[in-house]
């Protein structure tokens, strides 16, 4: 799963898809994940980093991650 190449993100969580003109606002954790995704990190590496930095268990993270990916897909932001 990769963020589409031309998706623009900002540090404050604003996401812009230049192909469609759609824009989205995200919360701080989503903005952090997007930055890691843009840097080319794998899903597994990102999850590990979140587990290390936040008080969350693996099962909860996996559930949230699935939901996150679904949102990205619905928003047409990732390459399928």
């Amino acid at each position: 799963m990769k963020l589409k190449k031309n998706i623009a993100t900002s540090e404050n969580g604003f996401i812009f898809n230049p192909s469609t003109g759609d824009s989205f606002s995200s919360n701080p954790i989503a903005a952090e994940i997007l930055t890691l995704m843009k840097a080319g990190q794998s899903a597994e590496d990102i999850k590990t980093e979140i587990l290390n930095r936040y008080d969350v268990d693996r099962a909860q993270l996996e559930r949230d991650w699935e939901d996150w990916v679904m949102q990205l897909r619905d928003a047409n932001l990732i390459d399928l």
Partner: protein
Amino acid sequence: MTTHNKTLVIAVTALNAVDNPGPGVAVIRALREGFGKHIRIIGLSYESLEPGVYLHELVNKTYQIPYPSAGAEALVERLQYIHGQEQIDVVIPNFDAELYNFIKVSARLSMMGIHTYLPTGEQLDARDKINLSKLGKKHHLFVPEDNIVTRADDLKKAAEELDYPMVVKGKYYEAYIAQSEEQARKYFYQLSAKWGLPVICQKFIKGTEINVAVLSDGEKAISIIPMRKLYITDKGKAWAGITIEDDDLLQLASNFVKATKWRGAFELEIMRDPDGKPYIMEVNPRFPAWIYLTAAAGQNQPAALVKMALGEKVDEFNEYQVGKMFIRYAWDHVTDVSEFQQLSAFGEL
């Protein structure tokens, strides 16, 4: 002649910057940005309450011109008089309904020294709503199926082919989405009373509305700017929009130019369906009202058209800023009744 040595006099129509705006004011704004102080803008208006008439920082002088229904001769006569006063270099007509007359008299205008940059009458007809489906089939472009209706009783047959919801369109302007035969009949009578026959029934396509402003030289597109509508008024007009990056749309516009050999400005109204297919819903044979966005994004189409009209070579633009937005606003411009009286009584302001 180059566009740098003298004050260019450019006449522009469609100064009706109202809730369903004509493109004139946006065209002028782009021209002023493109040519700086070296232009004089002559407004050509049909009605006394076209807001652009009173925007003197944009329009130097306005003359009323006869309605298109008065015919081409009346137009030439009036332009001859205005030309005598102003020595017009280029005229840019911006209304669909006036284009037939302007195209018809363009050779005579040229002899007078007034340049235009317009498509041919055949090209204008080919992209007409009535012929658009045929044009799509001929050039393998996605155009929604349609059915041309001249009697209300034919709506049933049209609906059998196209199903509901069905788009019911006026010959020149306006479109409604009919959910039932009852609604379709209502819109048929409404539109035929206002715009005449036929009425066009078109298959409803659900998707994202995108418009593409194009300037072409008869062989290739000089400029192509796609814009996604972000806020749409109840008349279906973009009140806010953003430039987008979409290679498919650039290719579609290029293909359209190659297929039709279009010369001049036009706008493609596109509906991108959920599968990504870009359907051409309409082709407007002129600049759109949001044309200033092309200048803001780095491809000043009105300024380029003026140069092309004057015979200058204009290279193809190949870059524009993606993510450039426009947000239209309403503004109460205040003027004195004496201005209104001047234009109403003497046809000049």
